[in-house]
């Protein structure tokens, strides 16, 4: 085993250890498969001979585009094995089907109807392997009037309603720059995969298809806005630095500080019966600007302010926050019982004392380039079956010999012939 690449750990300890997942997915399913890998499953990514198209997704390591430098690829495929397999060729399709025969879960993101062309549709696969669970992730679902519509992340965010709730009056709707429609359908499809896996166990080993929709995944991020429409016939829209509560534009929740921004709800906690400690804080700092008067305290405790009064409190809070550093503000507000949080950038997240205390970030070894890098760690710590980050993302076809040889039982000659015929 000396020349074994470090991807993935040979013996997994997660709750899914022993299960195998075949990953045919693009942006809509790779994170889903990675989560299953972190939970212990053996995940095999199937790529075309020239490598998966998402290897061209930026950003790139040191800004240099290449087959193994996509940071997107690194993150979404860490801990998987990779084989190449040309699905456009009949022997490639047969090879893929054989992989599925030895798997528990397939994750695929072909447009509706297209998987049949490769023999990877649920009816075909389940005939060969009745226990197989096929997680089919698409933009809008396998059927329905929009099934063939083209979409990328921003289209999912728009049609799934989330963008309507983001943004502000002046600029209109906005998308979160880090793609969330993709992220959402990935993690929600992972739940579908797990429900189906559990169902298989209690229903005599029978698999099924999980039909996940990116639009619908985003629809599930709309907070209480559907209920607000249902009950109050109000369309909430992007509140900017304010916050919508039940269809009413609420107070400002974002305040600028000396070194960035902080967020808080209910006017920093000044509102309501528990606000006294916060008013004291302003008063002790000599910056209550009258809010510590008997009258104001009563009004804040009752929580019913006129628009002018609310505006005044917002100004007092804004002035209080502006010259102070954000982490100190948050620490003191929390000490006084108010749930403030800082706005953190990726750098500040990596430097967070909270995450450091938890050893959250893990060094992942990229022995191929002779360096290790910090990755977000597993977010679930299981006492009996610890989940682990399983290593870096694979090179295209890095595990061809391992998988086609050890798993499918092909001999060296057969593998050589497949290679010569440009199947792998």
């Amino acid at each position: 085993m000396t020349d074994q690449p470090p991807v993935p750990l040979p013996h997994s300890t997660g709750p899914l250890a022993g299960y195998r997942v075949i990953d045919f997915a693009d942006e809509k399913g790779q994170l889903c498969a990675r989560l299953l890998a972190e939970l212990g499953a053996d995940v095999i990514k199937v790529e075309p001979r020239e490598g998966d198209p998402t290897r061209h997704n930026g950003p790139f390591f040191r800004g240099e585009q290449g087959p193994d430098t996509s940071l997107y690829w690194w993150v979404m495929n860490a801990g998987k094995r990779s084989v190449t397999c040309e699905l456009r060729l009949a022997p490639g399709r047969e090879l893929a089907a054989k992989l599925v025969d030895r798997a528990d879960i397939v994750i695929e993101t072909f447009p509706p109807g297209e998987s049949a062309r490769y023999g990877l549709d649920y009816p075909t696969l389940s005939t060969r392997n009745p226990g197989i669970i096929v997680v089919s992730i698409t933009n809008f679902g396998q059927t329905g009037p929009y099934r063939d519509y083209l979409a990328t992340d921003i289209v999912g965010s728009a049609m799934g309603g989330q963008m309507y709730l983001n943004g502000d009056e002046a600029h209109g709707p906005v998308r979160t720059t880090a793609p969330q429609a993709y992220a959402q359908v990935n993690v929600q499809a992972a739940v579908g995969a797990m429900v189906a896996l559990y169902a298989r166990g209690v229903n005599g080993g029978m698999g099924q298809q999980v039909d996940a929709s990116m639009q619908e995944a985003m629809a599930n991020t709309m907070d209480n806005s559907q209920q607000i429409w249902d009950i109050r016939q109000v369309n909430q829209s992007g509140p900017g630095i304010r916050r919508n509560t039940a269809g009413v534009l609420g107070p400002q929740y974002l305040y600028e500080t000396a070194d960035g921004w902080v967020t808080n709800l209910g006017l920093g906690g000044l509102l309501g019966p528990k606000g006294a400690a916060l008013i004291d804080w302003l008063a002790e700092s000599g910056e209550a600007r009258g809010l510590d008067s008997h009258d104001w305290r009563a009004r804040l405790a009752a929580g019913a302010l006129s628009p002018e009064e609310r505006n005044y409190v917002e100004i007092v809070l804004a002035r209080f926050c502006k010259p102070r550093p954000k982490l100190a503000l948050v620490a003191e507000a929390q000490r006084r019982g108010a749930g403030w949080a800082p706005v953190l950038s990726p750098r500040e997240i990596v430097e967070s004392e909270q995450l450091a205390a938890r050893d959250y970030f893990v060094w992942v070894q990229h022995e191929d380039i002779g360096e290790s890098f910090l990755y977000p760690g597993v977010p679930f710590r299981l006492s009996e079956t610890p989940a682990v980050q399983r290593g870096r993302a694979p090179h295209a076809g890095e595990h061809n010999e391992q998988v086609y040889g050890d798993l499918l039982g092909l001999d060296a000659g057969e593998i050589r012939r497949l290679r010569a015929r440009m199947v792998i």
Partner: protein
Amino acid sequence: MAETDRLKKPFAGLRVADFSWVGVGPTVAKYLADHGAEVIRIESSTYPEALRRAGPFINDEPGVNNSGYYANFNSSKLGMTVDLKHPRGPDLVRRLIAKCDVVTESFTPGTLARWGLEYEALRAIRPDLVMISMPLFARTGPWSHYMGYGHVLQAATGYNHLTGWPAGPPIGTGVAYTDFFVPHIAAAALIAALDYRRRTGKGQFIDFSQMEAAIHGLGTAILDWTANGHEQIRMGNRDPEAAPHGCYRCKDGQHLVIACFTELEWAGLKAAMGRPEWCDLERMRRKWQRLNEQREIDRHLSAWVEDMTRRETDPPEEPMEGAEGVMIRKFTSYELMEWMQKNGVPCGVVQSPEAMHGDPQLAHRGHYRKLNHPVMGERTYDSPSFRLSTTPAELTKAAPLMGEDNEYVYKELIGLTDEEFVELLLDGALE
């Protein structure tokens, strides 16, 4: 009888003690409930959970049994109330947990331990218990005691930093975003642990951090910092790899998003617009060039969308300016979406909650379910974004009233006699 009729619901026979509250935990337990588990929400009327106190309320009248917000997160569940501060409260709950398979909770760390209900204690009663704790920040660490909701956790996990316009404040999403991201990861881990238990009989404890899970929604931005030392920042509606990539206002007041990642999609957009001169300029030829011309592309495209769209009440065709007799077709926002899609352009309308309610695709998928609630009447509930072909989710009932199932839980599960039940009721233990 069809074969699917004989299939068991996935989690049939599992009982869940659901202490979790607000957004995250209830969503996790809702997945179990909607797929067949008996989930019992454990609450106290002495301190109603935040969502029961948050609107929308029917007729705008606040009431613990009247919140659409609470209802949506708690379909298919039973409800019980107990006052854990009552001397008998913790013991009653322990007797219930002896009959449960799963415990879910999302309190500030240490809360359950105060009543002797931490995992180690519960495991003594129920050795194969699977328990998941999902506090906001984490069970340990300097911020473990910090309070808050998803609306501020999105700030601490990078979503605010990455949502908004480059020159403007980090506005974040307009929702408690992490509440709608992290429960899915928690549910996947919890069900994986349940599957392990099904095979081995072994339970376990899952230490889950909402903060740590939320970061997985923007892992690429983290790697861009740790590997490249580059800090990503919010870009409005732009994307580093597509041009055009934006949100354009139509005359009917709606917005259409358009994204062209490939040359094919760009060619489709040109065709859809009738090949105006500007898009055949030499500097628009390749994607890397267009990425440098986004400002100009947006200017042209915004003007074109504004020009070519109409209000629903306007006629679909208008005479072209200057050219006598030539009519040009004008689109509503949805017609423009259809036209662009026909030309191979990824695009979509930014849909309001109202539009989502009427969306034909979501209707086809049956996304919004109507459930009848004894106080609130027939209301809209969200459902899972996936359809299982043989054991689909079934929202079996509307959210529970406060303590709705006390009799069942206390008498049949905990095993109180009628007299004990009444005695504890009068003594305030069941509040």
